[in-house]
């Protein structure tokens, strides 16, 4: 029982990182109908920036600064490589983002260099003991709180601000949005910047308690099944999908010992298994909008 509860708590912790990552994907998707495969690179870039900034600025300021810088980087990349592609088939753009991912990652790898880099967070591997002997890791609590706050901010932004509305509109029909005077280019840039900043935060939290290494970007790929099972264009879907995947993954990790024939690391592929199961029942994920198609 204790194992179970602890696994779920850990799952919610890692799941909130997936949720943050997923949100980044969803925001870009909503604005541009593209899955940006460059998110993993931005995630890594953000975490690496934090390792450099934590010295002079401290963790929290460093994280904020890294988020801003990564957002800026994403903005620049969008301007250079994605903007010329407005109106092109989404798959072409998706492959372009993969090209971006390759290029950015090389640069970030160079910045990691040969050292083990730290994000210098205040939590490390410290735990709180709850009654009943259950432990929660402080970093997981921090992740969940951060995610909750960011999600609330995003919700308000999209629902109540003029720019948020413009972003939603542009995501449905770029030309019609242009005709209303929305600068679709600015909307794209903003969505990339937001997603970049979210990726930086997620990347940093993914590295909390460990170190920043190149393999971190692989975590970002987990966001793909997360957003698919949540529904590509659904912000709540990304959050719920992230938490679900995190929990299932941690539970499998805890109990996979009893299913040795599944192989040592079945927990790594569980997100995809969960995704398959959900899609069998709901082809647009849990909360995705069904493509309105009629003749």
């Amino acid at each position, binding site marked *: 029982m204790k194992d179970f509860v602890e696994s779920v708590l850990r799952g919610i912790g890692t799941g909130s990182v997936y949720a943050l990552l997923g949100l980044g994907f969803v925001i870009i998707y909503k604005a541009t109908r593209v899955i940006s495969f460059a998110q993993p690179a931005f995630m890594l870039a953000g975490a690496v920036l934090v390792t450099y900034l934590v010295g002079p600025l401290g963790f929290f300021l460093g994280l904020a600064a890294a988020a801003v810088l990564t957002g800026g980087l994403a903005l620049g990349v969008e301007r250079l490589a994605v903007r010329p592609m407005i109106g092109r088939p989404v798959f072409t753009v998706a492959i372009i983002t993969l090209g971006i991912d390759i290029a950015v990652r090389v640069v970030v790898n160079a910045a990691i260099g040969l050292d083990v880099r730290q994000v210098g967070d205040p939590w490390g591997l410290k735990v709180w003991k709850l009654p009943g002997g259950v432990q929660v890791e402080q970093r997981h609590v921090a992740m969940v709180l951060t995610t909750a706050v960011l999600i609330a901010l995003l919700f308000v932004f999209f629902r109540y601000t003029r720019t948020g509305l413009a972003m939603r509109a542009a995501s449905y029909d770029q030309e019609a949005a242009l*005709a209303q005077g929305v600068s679709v280019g600015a909307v794209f840039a903003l969505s990339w910047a937001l997603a970049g900043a979210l990726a930086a935060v997620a990347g940093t939290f993914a590295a909390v308690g460990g170190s920043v290494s190149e393999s971190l970007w692989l975590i970002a790929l987990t966001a793909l099944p997360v957003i698919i099972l949540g529904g590509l264009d659904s912000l709540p879907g990304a959050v719920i999908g992230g938490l679900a995947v995190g929990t299932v993954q941690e539970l499998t990790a805890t109990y996979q010992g009893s299913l040795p024939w599944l192989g040592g690391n079945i927990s790594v592929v569980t997100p995809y298994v969960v995704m398959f199961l959900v899609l069998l029942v709901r082809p647009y994920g849990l909360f995705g909008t069904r493509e309105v198609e009629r003749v």
Partner: protein
Amino acid sequence: MLRVQNLEVVYDDVMLVLRGVSLQVPPGRIVALLGANGAGKTTLLRALSGLLGVHDGAITKGAVTLDEKPIHRLRPAAVVRRGVTQVMEGRRTFAELTVEENLRLGAHTRPKGRAEALERMYGLFPVLAQRRGSVAGYLSGGEQQMLAMGRALMSDPAYLLLDEPSLGLAPRLVEQVRDLIVQINRAGTGVLLVEQNATMALSIAEHGYVLETGKVVLDKPAAELLADDDIREFYLGRAERSFRDVKHYKRRKRWLS
């Protein structure tokens, strides 16, 4: 005055679609633009509102001026800010947003007087007020057309460009839309009305242009056009003739010879 001078537009670097079109819309007037399918009417509106870029089109010659200032190099947002707004063919409301959100978006370039503008629109279109919270995609065709016009009017434009507002609408809705255009125009907005339904368009316009394969071939006051034999033959039809009498041969238009 919204004026188009000797405009040439090319798509994809190769397809010359407008070949030296000139036309003008005086403030506060309704001008009708007629023409066969593919004549370039939509293209002309895109050139006015800056949306050519989206379609790989470009203005290669000529100018569009608003009160003698050129606007054809501006981006769509800037054009809207100067008071020229287009209602696109096929309504293009944001199906997933609510009616009110659609309207609010119309005021994107003018956030200041948004609340009043909303009230004005609800006054103009009471149906929309009733449905303000519902998702636009579920409105009927006519309602969507109202929404599209209302959305465009939210930016308080001096000129409204309407692309085939009666397309696919039932006869009664066509009437409603026609009345609406008149109403909007009375409130001081200049209208450039692109229509296939020539009867409807010429009944409310003051002046009309006829576009054929990218050229203006007729340019007359609406009343004269209504009386023109060719227009009657090719655009208005003769009420007494049955489709069963139409013969299979290619007729030629006199103004082309």
